[in-house]
């Protein structure tokens, strides 16, 4: 009996010493296992796929909460790129976006090239919603735009299409192979959701430059980085293999989860 206790005691003492040792050195060891592409990282990222499926199952077509005029207490806080320094963009802005077109391409029967007037002549939707930034802050504003579903209907999405990719005019990063323009993607369920709009109006006025003029997407059931600004082209794809780093978006290629419903 005595022998049993001592060996157990020894075991527990060395185990607790071992655990505290791992805790102290473990943080650095853990850091080095968390880069994009690492095995442990990829395993942990599997939870995002689970969240995506679970929330799709639970959420269905349900709408994000909408608010009242009284809830709009401040201008919409701009984030990310707020003044694109790109020559093409500045040229379009100088002409008040008269020469700007939204291209719709990829896996569609009828590729489109839409001017701002054409988009504004389509049926519109106005909604007062809360923008939730991945950083943790929220801001309520009124958005007006063309439902993305109408644009997709007009372009006639091919059956093999799985995702909608947004290509933007603003440079978010520079790499050895050149400027990286912002890009991002959502699935067709969110793309066809009634609150997913291509917004050209904010709080009753034309969309300002800092919030994404001439056009940005609103995906009300996801986090802010899933709603690209300064839209140039919408591409229907069946995989992300040919898009940036292959993870579906600029921030995704830099380690963010692709599904941003959480």
């Amino acid at each position, binding site marked *: *009996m005595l022998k*049993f206790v001592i060996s*157990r*005691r020894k075991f*527990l*003492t060395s185990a*607790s010493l071992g655990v505290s040792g791992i805790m102290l050195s473990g*943080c*650095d060891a*853990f*850091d080095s296992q*968390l880069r994009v592409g690492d095995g442990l*990282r990829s395993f*942990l*990222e*599997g*939870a*995002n796929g*689970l*969240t995506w499926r679970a*929330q799709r199952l*639970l*959420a269905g077509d*349900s*709408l*994000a*909460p909408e*608010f009242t005029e009284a*809830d709009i*207490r*401040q*201008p919409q*806080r701009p984030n990310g790129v707020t003044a694109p320094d790109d020559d093409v963009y500045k040229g379009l802005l100088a002409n008040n976006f008269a020469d700007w077109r939204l291209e719709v391409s990829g896996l569609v029967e009828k590729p489109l090239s839409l001017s701002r007037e054409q988009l504004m002549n389509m049926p519109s939707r106005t909604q007062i919603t*809360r923008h*939730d*930034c*991945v*950083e*943790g*802050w*929220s*801001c*309520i504003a009124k958005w007006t735009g063309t439902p993305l579903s109408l644009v997709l209907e007009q372009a006639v999405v091919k059956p093999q299409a799985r995702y909608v990719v947004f290509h933007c005019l603003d440079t978010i990063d520079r790499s050895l192979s050149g400027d990286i323009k912002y890009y991002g993607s959502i699935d067709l369920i969110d793309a066809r959701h009634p609150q997913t709009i291509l917004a050209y109006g904010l709080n009753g006025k034309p969309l300002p430059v800092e919030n994404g003029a001439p056009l940005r997407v609103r995906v*009300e*059931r*996801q*986090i802010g980085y899933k709603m690209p600004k300064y839209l140039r082209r919408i591409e229907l794809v069946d995989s992300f293999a040919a898009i940036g780093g292959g993870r579906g978006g600029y*921030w995704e290629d*830099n*380690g*963010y*989860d692709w599904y*941003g*419903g*959480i």
Partner: protein
Amino acid sequence: MQSVARSQSTVGPDAAAPKDATLIYRQSRWTRLTHWLWAISLFFMLLSGLQIFNARPQLYIGKESGFAYNNTIFAIGAENTANGPRGYTEIFGKRFDTTGVLGWSGPAEQETSRAFPSWATIPSYYDLGTARVVHFFFAWILTTTLVVWLVASLVNGHLRRDLVPRIDDLRRLPRDIVDHAKLKFHHSREYNTLQKMAYGSVMFVLLPLMIITGLAMSPSMNAVLPFLNDLLGGRQTARTIHFIVMLLLVAFFIVHMLMIFAAGPINELRSIITGWYRTDPPAHGSKTPQRGA
């Protein structure tokens, strides 16, 4: 024959009873397994959560964050002063210098502006995307474990036998408080009143509140359960509650560790690893049964 006698006297399913009568089988394998899964999940969720908080080290009350008006109740930041950069923590507008830990920290001459220090975050460097990956992975583990524990504890009687408060517990509360204050611990099969209160509030108040306020921050879950944020007072209030509950869980952890060291760490650790717990020898002449630390 000895092995037969042993298995007959075994209380639990997965261990042989030692001959020593004061050793009892106290914690079922479900309790032990879920305990350690929580310990691991909460460790990673705390450190990744502090990293997520660092991305916006302010807490607000209401539906949104005030930028053109002030609804900030808590903030950690750094500012330039005559004595160089200083870290500060602001609670309800009252500012405290927290240089070295909160707001401004790091190795000498390499301090940086960050709310929670490097040693308290996962990853140690600033990386919001990775912290979210870690946080949400362990959120699934934590929540699943809580459900498994609840079902197992209902089935094996842990809940009814050990955690449900009784009239007796109320009667014993004053003596329990005095005993704890004197660091006088009794070791028995049952939890004492303060233990029941502490474990019960973690299991049935703090962890569920953590999960609910976490869900309330998810834009997709807001579409599923729109009443959640109305109930909690808005998404930013939910985020603030999430943070406060974190502080309470950390406080629980500290007290939990102190109690374990005070009550006998070897015995306490053994019971949560193997299930076996050494109780006090039967007290002669005492009418009320003594209850565990």
